[in-house]
């Protein structure tokens, strides 16, 4: 049953992505509406899948690379749907859905069943920790997308070569505003996620902070976003510089996510999470 939900969600996200790509070329509102509805349906099936997983595992389904990628995709889709309500920027979907689709495809190709869950993970603090962090990640993915769109549009206007994207992308002010808001909304989630993680670590392992490589990189990510937010709010950074910085921040975030979970980490790695050995 759960697998069926996932397959349907995967199918729908691919359908919606192709729709959004056709939309950016053809610029017809009908195509956007169809793609958007498909994506909403995808989000519903994906949610059903996750709820099912949660009840089967007894813990947030974010304990292997396969499941985290799928959860990441869910967060990005959710963040996009929320941002659409606020900004009504149709073309954003054409940039966001390919990311979500790519994550879903990678997730679906990773073999293996969900590992047995270490009982130590079955606490609300663990779930709170991963869920808030990933929601933050999803929102930051939107800021990354908006930053890329900003750089494309700004480059065209600055160099005075108004190509085919010029008409299709919105104004610089809109993109900058999306970038700004997504960092402002994403940052509290990241912060709460880190705090929840620390509390969980105290309860489960007896210390708030252990200087595990992933913790260190998470701190670096947090500091990078904190700096960007500070520069934006206090110094008045905006536009190109803010866009470049938010792309850099997101790359650090991705490195932390992948590097910390696969190569570097000690107890944050999926291998250890799964078997519970490192704990």
């Amino acid at each position: 049953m759960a697998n069926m939900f996932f397959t349907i969600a995967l199918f729908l996200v691919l359908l919606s992505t192709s729709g959004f790509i056709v939309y950016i070329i053809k610029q017809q509102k009908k195509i956007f509406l169809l793609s958007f509805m498909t994506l909403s349906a995808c989000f519903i099936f994906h949610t059903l899948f996750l709820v099912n997983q949660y009840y089967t595992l007894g813990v947030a389904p974010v304990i292997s690379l396969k499941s985290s990628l799928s959860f990441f995709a869910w967060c990005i889709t959710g963040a996009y749907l929320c941002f659409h309500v606020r900004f009504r920027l149709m073309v954003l979907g054409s940039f966001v859905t390919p990311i979500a689709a790519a994550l879903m495809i990678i997730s679906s190709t990773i073999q293996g069943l969900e590992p047995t869950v270490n009982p130590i993970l079955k606490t609300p603090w663990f779930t709170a920790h991963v869920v808030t962090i990933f929601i933050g990640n999803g929102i930051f993915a939107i800021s990354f997308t908006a930053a890329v769109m900003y750089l494309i549009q700004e480059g065209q206007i600055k160099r005075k070569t108004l190509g085919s994207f010029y008409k299709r992308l919105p104004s610089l002010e809109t993109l900058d505003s999306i970038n700004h808001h997504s960092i402002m909304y994403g940052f509290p989630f990241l912060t709460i996620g880190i705090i929840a993680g620390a509390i969980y670590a105290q309860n489960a392992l007896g210390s708030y902070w252990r200087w595990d490589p992933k913790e260190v990189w998470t701190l670096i990510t947090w500091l990078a976003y904190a700096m960007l937010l500070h520069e934006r709010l206090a110094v008045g950074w905006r536009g190109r510089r803010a866009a470049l910085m938010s792309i850099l921040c997101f790359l650090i975030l991705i490195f932390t996510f992948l590097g910390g979970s696969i190569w570097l980490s000690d107890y944050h790695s999926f291998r250890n999470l799964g078997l519970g050995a490192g704990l």
Partner: protein
Amino acid sequence: MTVIIDIGMNHMSAPVELRECFANDAGKMGIALGYMRESELIKEGLFISTCNRVEALFTTDYPEEARKTVISMFSTMGGVSEDSFISNLYIFEDMEAVSHIFRVASSLDSMVLGEPQILGQIKDAYHRASATEKTTGVILNRLMHRAFHAAKRVKTETGISESAVSVSYAAVELAKKIFYGLEGKQVLLIGAGEMAELAARHLIGQGVESLFVANRSFDKAMQVADLFHGKAILFEEIGHYLIGTDIVITSTGSKEYIITHDLVRKSLRERRNRPLFFIDIAVPRDVEPSVNNLENIYVYDIDDLMTIVEENSAQRKDEAIKAERIIQEESIRFEKWLKTLEVVPTIVALKERTEALRKAEMERSLSVLGQLTESQLQAVEALTVSLADKIINDPILILKSKAGRAGRDIFLDVARRLFNLDMENQKRS
């Protein structure tokens, strides 16, 4: 045979001095429509008059005479002699008139290809003719609705009205790609000039909130500021006002740069890096080119804007070819409909003739049949109606199918004779 005729002049056929004489004013339109309604020669009429064109569109059974009256109407209306403008007129008949009016409505005949106002102007003219003056009928009503349909197709199926084709409009489009909306933005106009003022006017039309005007002569600045309900400032204050400004339009005759790299750089921090858009229409330029290298500052000079306009114009020409195809399709469709119209009178006559015969026969028979009950009477009525309908059903279908064909007139003639629709043999029988 009813003919559709269009007589008119546009920006290409006539100079502005001549077009002015028939210029867009509601009174003249009323006179023209009244004249066409009164004329015995003209069946339906429509009069279009904008600053770039005058068109009289009408249907008539006497093309030669009607043409002459319309030309003399032009002459009295404009207060000019016929000789002075007759060579500037174009006259289209039938399908040529149809596709001409389709092209006009779709803005393919406009000075600025694809400009959106013309459709609205034609709709107004049609509304005036059809609703107020009641000078249009079956043919023109249908023709105009098809023209609006063709215009809509051209607008949605081609990119003809998508891109800016004037410098000031291109500047406004750019401003809209830098700022989310122009509501509440502040504009600084440095220097004066027609193009700069046009750009300012466009920006105000888009909701720009406040406008400041700087000029070497404060007097002149005051004048221009009054024009736009703005505020005049001294030339020396430009640096200060740059801080709150979002869009700057420059068009002075100055030989040196008015806006230097240093001047803008100094304002950056106080502006908190808000984007600033310079539209430099002046030649030689007023804004130092290196200002464009500053972060969040965009400078477009007249050449940059002209390049955009030229690219857009070229694009529009490509789209115009697509649009011409749509016009042809729609003209052919209209022509088909028009041809069905020509068999209509015969079909109507056929129906009337059979109905008259049926009624006469019914009356005669009823007296013979004696007392009938209500239901019997209805049955007889229904019987005769369906009998008559069945008999003429096939002939009508054949006539309709011949509507647009070559042998149509033969069929019409035969039908008229066979069913004696013209009542020629009345006496003989």
